[in-house]
């Protein structure tokens, strides 16, 4: 911890949209290298706004974001975007190239990787998500779960410092959900997972943050947070019917 800088450090982050609507009111947290952290929060808590700050798409508010020691700002934008891999909610938005292979190659190619090294990166990333056989297919012909996995691969190909997933389990059937969980668990990168799928957070992330009304309202072990009924109710977070966080053994 003392030698390597934290993967992600957010301090005092506040932001208002041009129309005056303020979404973040001073967000502080740190994610250490190799950690898997869930960012929980009800709709409208400012989760997506926060995510867009992590790679500098939104800037101009107060506070700082630091990725592996590098402050997010105009000066290092290309490097920051390589280091922070964001997987957006709708894979169709993320997969904009005509074939899976080209899509996965887009990030590294934009960073100047060419030739055989590019090919190797693409293959490695697709293998990590188990989609190497689909390289030459157009994304539109894949199932939703497959598209989500390819979306993860597009980001992995950039060899990011931290992987940020926006609602990774949304619209997935149980099998795809489990497959994605297996893939994420096997990865050797820092993960920040933005979600309101609480069982999924518990399954994958030892630690959770609760973002509510634009600030971090709680930070602790996922199991403990989910078992605190008063806390959960206060922030409009609800467990599925019959789900008992204490009865689950974590796979982390």
């Amino acid at each position: 911890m003392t030698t390597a800088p934290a993967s992600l450090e957010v301090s005092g982050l506040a932001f208002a949209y041009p129309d005056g609507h303020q979404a973040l009111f001073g967000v502080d947290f740190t994610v250490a290298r190799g950690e898997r952290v869930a960012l929980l929060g009800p709709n409208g808590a400012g989760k997506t706004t926060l995510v867009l700050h992590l790679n500098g798409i939104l800037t101009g508010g107060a506070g700082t974001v630091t990725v592996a020691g590098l402050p997010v700002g105009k000066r290092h934008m290309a490097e920051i975007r390589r280091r922070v891999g964001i997987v957006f909610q709708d894979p169709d938005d993320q997969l904009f190239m005509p074939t899976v292979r080209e899509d996965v190659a887009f990030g590294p190619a934009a960073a100047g990787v060419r030739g055989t090294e590019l090919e190797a990166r693409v293959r490695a990333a697709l293998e990590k998500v188990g989609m190497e056989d689909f390289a030459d297919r157009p994304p539109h012909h894949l199932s939703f779960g497959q598209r989500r996995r390819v979306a993860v691969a597009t980001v992995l190909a950039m060899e990011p410092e931290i992987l940020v997933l926006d609602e990774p389990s949304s619209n997935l059937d149980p099998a795809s959900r489990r497959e994605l969980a297996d893939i994420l668990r096997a990865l050797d990168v820092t993960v920040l997972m933005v979600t309101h799928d609480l069982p999924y957070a518990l399954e994958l992330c030892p630690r959770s943050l609760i973002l509510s009304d634009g600030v971090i309202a709680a930070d602790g072990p996922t199991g403990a947070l989910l078992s605190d009924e008063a806390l959960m109710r206060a922030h409009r977070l609800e467990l599925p019917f019959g789900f008992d966080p204490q009865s689950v053994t974590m796979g982390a």
Partner: protein
Amino acid sequence: MGAGHAHRLYRHGHSPVHALPPHTKLAAAFAFVVVVVSTPREAMWAFGVYAGLLGFVAHHARVPAGFLLKRLLIEVPFVAFAVLMPFVAEGERVDVLGLSLSVNGLWGAWNVLAKGTLGVAASVLLASTTELRELLLGLQRLKLPPLLVQIASFMIRYGDVITDEMRRMRIARESRGFEARGVRHWGVLAKSAGALFIRSYERGERVHLAMVSRGYAGSMPVIDEVTASRAQWSHALALPLAALVVCLLGWTL
């Protein structure tokens, strides 16, 4: 015009024509059509030779005649126009089967029919032997402005997504008992079109975010480049060159 756009023309295959680099095929098809259009209409035999040349290519590409003929239907509106032409054109007239027809009009109809049909056939052959992705690479290689190729590529990528959204909106309308039957339902359909535009535009904004997140700064990185050897070029250009010889003969004979 017409609603036939949903059908993809591409036929998967491994023929020598399929294997040619896309930009050579694009150049060849284009040059061929230019030659055809420049041929004097009086040289009727030349058009027969052109058709023969295309037939030869189609045979090599293993594109069945039935497939090719069916795709030619797209020019039906203009065939109708061509059929009218002998009746409405001016000039000297001849009697054919009791009908008085304009000689010039007959020539005009023949001209449009022959050249139009050959043009459509050449395009169909190109489209049926070249994958979408390849066509885009070919256009890029032929130095079409990169921005234009990018727009085309996004259009191809999201054409299906948006058509799908449109279909879902129709299903949603019909599930609630709405069926468009006439002009007074245009308001509802136009609202759907408006909603579709908003969705498309917003998706464009999200796609842009996703691109920026992966390092996009205004120009697409070059991932694939197509190259063609001299032999491939000469294979592809054999078609327009043969056509050119025919065309020159047509002018001189």
